[in-house]
């Protein structure tokens, strides 16, 4: 069994995670975590939909930011996809998508302030990088034959419009719709840094222990996402897109001088700004690297590896929930609902909730990341098992799980897992804002101390770390010949 490279790599990652556990800070520090968890669930079942006058507005803004951000992201992502062969473009896209929406928001907040543009760009920029990559992959996969059958002399644009776009249209549309769902999640969590979306009110209610109010917001959010197929219709899209910009809220006017100041002063390293020159830069950078970047990287990597393996274990446990090889339709529907809930909840919100309930440590982050990502992968491979035809006399129950299904889906399971590796790391870094000592913690501290030069260096470090893990993940997938369609 250990001769199989997929099994071997699984055990290597498991071992890394176990070693990581020795160093990780895993604890429940709340004195009465279960009572708090109980109160929280009590809040969910007794939602208070009339708590805040702003709730409906917040929901509307959440949708508006998602629509405008994703639309701009997909438009510019598409343009970038057309020139994606160029290496500088690839590097540029890898870079902008390696920086999390919340980091982008924190950056724009410093000079646009509470203007709608902050939220829109925070979604549009990283999404453009992701769209560029995925669109170009889809375009590459288009059937080349029709292009060859074209009359010679056909213009490039026309050839592209007739042979590539129609072939890729459905895939691109599906992916874009999926991204819109991600956009709703991103939009919601932007509220945590002060934009007027759902997260703003969710944070306020949670921190005050108003669980019924928070429960109502979560329920509305799930309903919003679960009903997407009903209200996101091709015919209605133009209306949404035209209307969305008007529902972003007013915010505060932009002062353009601030933009200039940010780029020419704020982010210039302090020693250079104060005229100490390069001689002062080295100790400044050393201090930053040793006291903040290194511990941040270490904690980010440890937490990522543990969360990755936890995600894997949870997905393998979760997929039978929706697989039609087990149980009846009743149980499967319940399984669907459970998976929809865990994967619709942004990791950030899950981690925030668990941190409130269990106290600060890496544990809430690991559980949040595993629940969300495990829910997604579990859903994907569960659906995959539904297309498997087993022989009529195949074993049932646990034997069916271990002998028939897991071996068949294991490769795509690993492909999804390694695909999400980078995504998990992106999220791990950002969870630092909540007080776990990953890179985001140090970025947030630098921003809280109005030291944007330090924040920018740390964000750069985070981006490079993400790019590195992305490359490693791709290398492993290629090495093991794991193929998968992008799915987030």
């Amino acid at each position, binding site marked *: 069994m250990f001769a199989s490279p997929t099994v071997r790599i699984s055990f290597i990652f498991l071992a890394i995670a176990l070693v990581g556990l020795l160093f990780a800070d895993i604890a429940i520090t709340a004195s009465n975590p279960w009572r708090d968890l109980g109160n929280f669930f009590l809040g969910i079942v007794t939602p208070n939909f009339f708590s805040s006058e702003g709730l409906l507005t917040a929901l509307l803004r959440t949708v508006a930011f998602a629509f405008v951000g994703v639309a701009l992201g997909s*438009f510019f992502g598409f343009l970038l996809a057309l020139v994606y062969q160029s290496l500088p473009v690839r590097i540029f896209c890898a870079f902008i998508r390696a920086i999390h929406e919340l980091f982008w928001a924190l950056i724009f907040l410093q000079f646009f*302030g509470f203007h709608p543009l902050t939220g829109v760009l925070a979604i549009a920029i990283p999404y453009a990088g992701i769209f560029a990559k995925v669109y170009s992959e889809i375009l590459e996969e288009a059937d080349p034959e029709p292009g060859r059958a074209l009359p010679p002399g056909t213009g490039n644009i026309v050839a592209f419009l007739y042979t590539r776009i129609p072939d890729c249209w459905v895939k691109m549309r599906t992916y874009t719709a999926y991204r819109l769902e991600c956009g709703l999640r991103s939009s919601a969590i932007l509220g945590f840094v002060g934009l007027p979306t759902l997260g703003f009110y969710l944070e306020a209610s949670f921190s005050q222990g108003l669980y019924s109010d928070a429960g109502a917001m979560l329920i509305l959010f799930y309903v919003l996402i679960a009903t997407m197929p009903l209200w996101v219709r091709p015919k209605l899209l133009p209306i949404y897109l035209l209307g969305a910009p008007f529902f972003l809220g007013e915010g505060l006017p932009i002062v353009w001088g601030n933009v200039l100041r940010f780029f020419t002063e704020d982010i210039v390293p302090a020693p250079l700004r104060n005229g100490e020159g390069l001689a002062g830069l080295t100790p400044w950078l050393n201090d930053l690297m040793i006291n903040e970047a290194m511990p941040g990287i270490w904690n980010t990597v440890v937490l990522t590896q543990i969360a990755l393996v936890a995600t894997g274990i949870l997905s393998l446990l979760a997929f039978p929930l929706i697989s039609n090889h087990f149980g009846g339709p009743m149980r499967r529907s319940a399984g669907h609902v459970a998976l929809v809930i865990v994967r619709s909840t942004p990791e950030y919100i899950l981690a925030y909730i668990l941190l409130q309930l269990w106290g600060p440590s890496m544990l809430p982050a690991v559980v949040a990341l595993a629940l969300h990502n495990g829910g997604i992968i579990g859903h994907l491979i569960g659906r995959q098992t539904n297309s498997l035809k087993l022989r009529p006399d195949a074993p049932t129950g646990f034997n069916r799980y271990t002998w028939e299904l897991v071996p068949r889906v294991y490769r795509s399971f690993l492909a999804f897992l390694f695909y999400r590796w980078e995504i998990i790391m992106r999220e791990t870094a950002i969870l630092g804002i909540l007080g776990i000592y990953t890179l985001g913690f140090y970025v947030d501290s630098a921003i809280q101390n109005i030291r944007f030069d330090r924040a920018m260096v740390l964000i750069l470090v985070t981006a490079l770390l993400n790019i590195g893990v992305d490359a490693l993940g791709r290398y492993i997938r290629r090495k093991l010949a794991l193929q998968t369609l992008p799915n987030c």
Partner: protein
Amino acid sequence: MALNIIRKLMLSSFLCFTAAAASAETFVFTAIPDEDETKLVERFRGVADYLSEQLDVDVRYIPVKSYAAAVSAFRNNQVQLAWFGGLSGVQARRLVPGSEAIAQGVEDEAFETYFIANSNTGIAPADELSDLKDELQGKTFTFGSKGSTSGRLMPEFYVRDTFGSKPEDFFSRVGFSGNHTRTLRLVEAGTYEVGALNFQVWEKELSDGNIDTDAVQVIWKTPAYPDYQWTIRGDVNDRFGEGFKQRVTEALLNLDNPELLESFPRSGFIPASNDDYEPIRKTAEEIGILD
């Protein structure tokens, strides 16, 4: 079809840039989010109404999610007035030349931080922090916000000064709860064993009967230091007319609505100046929060 969508996207993105262009001359202020949001919104909406009435301009309060966001909004001239803590005020005035501290609460001249502990730790109150060294060492500890004066700067200063080590080395776990109310709740619930908070928040919650005194108690009080103040930008007169700064100052100093004052809670506002906060600046530089 593809083209259709593209056309619509461009149109809507254009609209998004123009949507926020128009905004009348409104006097905007903010405050550091040092307490629960509903309380802040209630308190500062009252202040906004009061100022609007006194100054005869539109006055708007915007809530923010962090101390830094309050400072940035002030610096970026998106707000012209702010209710800052000692540290955030120093940061803001350094970044905005010409800005001034114009009023502080009566209590802010001599502000204090309370160290509180969960009763399960068995720590008894002491007059000197150094007496608590053995009891406190290795406990879990929470500050308030990273940018708070009473919730972070002063307690960190006294921990370093008294115990000669960084908080994260002295305590087994150091967290930032976010604000004073939350520090209180977390220590009360035992999530953290020890915490440090704004004494006014403690006293107010105590008198409102919101504290379970069997679960949490004050174990040490810091010496007095200057804290909260109203800070205004230097360029408001250019924008809102000659003498505007003076009128704002007077309006704040004359605020005597007991309900509004109670919500801060302050017994009244008195004049303040930038120099009053020199001690805070020195302390911040000493522990490396300010460059």
